[in-house]
């Protein structure tokens, strides 16, 4: 560890002990207070965010106690009687809850495999375009679907995949015998759901990778060119490694949201006939809990969701730190 001689720069890290060797050693608490006093402007700037999280993220966590209560809106959180782990027992004994968990993991897993790389590939492709006018236009067109309301997207998908829709028209022209009613077939739900999600979001998500690519030093490409590298080699050996930290951070965030499958979109696309593959935790909670004001069971499922997501993020972060020295914290 480097020895800092100028106490003024010690605030670059709270963890780095100040090096005031000539003073008697301070206790941890005293050092903490001294550090705050010395850097109070920075703490002042931090305060709004801390207060924001305390009020809007931490205080509502008290509401998680609902999961352990027989909750009534009128009696309130404190007035409702405790029921211990009753609601969790209900959840874990329920075969359809496990089916929903399974579906959630499968849809998220497939999204990770197919939808996560899509914006990266798209960004790399945009980056290789040489004609600036065409590049701008292609990017704008690719961003557009992101701004369409999910309800409209679902309407488009339902129309396209209906027996009389355009997809079936094309298939019939190509020689299919009968039109397929895609949205009532469990085996088609995942491809349609993930595919349309890629169409909607890949363009917009590619922005962050394009920004990362823009940050790569041009001198790397210039020297590669001097060495006679092909464009493909430059992409593979320069661009990709340079944006790898960004990719990993995005991956960790994504893994944290593994159990969050877009609830509105599923509700809009699924049918009882496709529950088998389409029913995810959030839609199950909606039918089981919220439609009947059973907030307690819904909260229990939410707690389960949060615990799993938390574990996943920690694991992913640790793996990433060990393998690539990139991590969220």
């Amino acid at each position, binding site marked *: 560890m480097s020895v800092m001689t100028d106490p003024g720069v010690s605030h670059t890290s709270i963890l780095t002990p100040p090096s005031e060797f000539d003073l008697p050693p301070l206790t941890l608490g005293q050092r903490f207070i001294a550090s705050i006093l010395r850097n109070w402007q920075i703490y002042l700037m931090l305060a709004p965010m801390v207060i924001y999280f305390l009020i809007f993220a931490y205080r509502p966590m008290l509401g998680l106690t609902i999961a352990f209560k027989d909750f009534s809106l009128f009696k309130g959180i404190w007035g409702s009687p405790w029921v211990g782990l009753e609601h969790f027992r209900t959840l874990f004994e*329920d075969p359809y809850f496990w089916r929903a968990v399974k579906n959630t993991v499968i849809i998220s897993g497939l999204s990770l495999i197919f939808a996560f790389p899509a914006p990266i590939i798209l960004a790399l492709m945009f980056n290789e375009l040489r004609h600036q006018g065409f590049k701008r236009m292609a990017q704008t067109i690719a961003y557009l679907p992101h701004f369409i309301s999910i309800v409209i997207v679902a309407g488009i998908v339902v129309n396209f995949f209906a027996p009389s829709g355009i997809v079936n028209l094309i298939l019939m022209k190509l020689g299919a015998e009968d039109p397929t009613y895609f949205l009532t077939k469990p085996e088609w739900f995942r491809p349609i759901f993930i595919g349309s999600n890629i169409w909607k979001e890949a363009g917009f998500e590619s922005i962050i990778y394009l920004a990362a690519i823009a940050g790569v030093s041009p001198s790397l490409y210039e020297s590669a060119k001097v060495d006679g590298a092909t464009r493909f080699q430059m992409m593979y050996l320069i661009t990709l490694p340079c944006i790898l930290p960004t990719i990993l951070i995005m991956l960790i965030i994504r893994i944290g949201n593994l159990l969050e499958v877009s609830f509105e979109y599923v509700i809009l696309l699924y049918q009882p006939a496709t529950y088998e593959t389409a029913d995810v935790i959030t839609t199950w909670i909606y039918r089981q809990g919220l439609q009947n004001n059973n907030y307690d069971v819904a909260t229990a499922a939410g707690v389960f969701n949060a615990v799993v997501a938390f574990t996943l993020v920690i694991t992913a972060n640790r793996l990433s730190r060990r393998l690539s020295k990139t991590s969220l914290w």
Partner: protein
Amino acid sequence: MTLKTLLMGAVASAALLTPGSYGPAKAEPIVSEPLELDVFMHFRDKYGWNTDWPVAQKVAEATGITLNGTAPVGAGDSRELFNLMIASGDIPDIVGGEFSGAGVKEAFDQYGMEGAFLPLNDLIAEHAPDIQKVLDENPTIRAAISAPDGNIYYIPYLPDGDVGRVWFVRQDWLDALGLEQPRTVDELYDVLVAFRDKDPNGNGQADEVPYFNRHAEEAIRLVNLWGARSTGSDSYHQFYIEDGKVVHPYAHENFKVGISNVAAWYQEGLIDKEIFTRKSRARDELLGGNMGGVTHDWVASTAAYNDKLAAEIDGFSFLPMAPPADINGKVWEEHGRINVKPSGWAIGYSNEHPEETIKFFNFYFTEEGQRIANFGVEGLTYYMVDGNPVFKDSVLNGDGSVVAQLWEIGAQIPIGFPQDYEYERQWTNDLALKGIEMYTEGGYVVEQFPGIAMNAEEKAIYDKSWPNILSFMQESYEKWILGAADVEAEWSDYQAQLERLGYSDVLAALQTAYERQYGGSN
């Protein structure tokens, strides 16, 4: 002059004209000193109680009691607003409302038993003779609005009229093919096949959709033709009572026969292939595209397509028809209007004027109150003709539907009042009225079951199992219809799975609740 002053003027002049023009003399004000009460009332995700409503002002004038709304007057999520109000613990003097499609009886019962609302039984008996009279004359209504503890916590909205959805057929197609209106299930089958194969719209393409509907549940309702039920009341998936026992239609033995035949019809292309995803577009698309042949839908709005499409489709004639007789030869209609809604209003526990409030509720059951709640304000929306209220032409031909115009001024809203079908008859077209007459005279509509109030233990059993059971039922029948699974082969597994999911426990809980609630009324 602002709109508000205009309306106030209309109210004032109407008030001057009213006395003696209708029935008994004007009711005496309930209070000698003007009284103001708070009311929470939000419905249809769109309207909140508005003190400026001409109807609200008219009522305030007649009773001396002014209600101040605490819910936002504009659009919002009615259910969420209601729950927020309950969760705040600050219950206004009066609480009413309706969530999108669903009533609030369950909330009135549950929170009423927890102390949020006052029990009204004694108040009604002592201070509300007109409400008391309705309850005495209709024991089923009394039973239907009672909570599991025997108390009444809300004054209900009582719709009028029986006929809701009826069968419709393209009469011009029948004529073109030389067919009669089908009177039995077999004749209906032949008609649907003819519609499918014989190109009744004459465009040379097999694009006809013999049976279509805006709701996939109406395809399930076709099991009626094989003598099975699909629901017990005016909404889908409800329990019904058979010989004093609570049963669910989808678990009934005769549902198997019905649904396997419906599945066969679907496979044969007699039912819209896209019925599961076409949804609310179905009527506009298929009638407008000259492709739909038969449907089962709300009588007034469906009959209106005859006017809408007369200019576009030559000879378009979509007529109401009697329900085809089922395989047992019985002619019946499962869907009707329920005569007591699970919505209305209740008195909050901290209300300091319960007597005045119940008298205020009672006002809506008097002749004058009923007329205001049904027709709006005299001079503004209606005139008296021969002692009867008649809507003004400007309302009948105004922007938007009559009922939407009435909501805008605070009439026909889901508070506790008896609806008068006359209000609707005046703007229903002749075809629809004929259909209604046919169904009423035939006595086709079966009695609609108003539902069961469960106590805390029963509700816990129901809440734990029922959502899963219903999901499983829907999943199963959709697969049968789509041909992904076979009814015959799966029926015993289906029954066994229902059992595993706790169907018997739910039935037992409902049976206990049903006997407690309706035991005295039959």
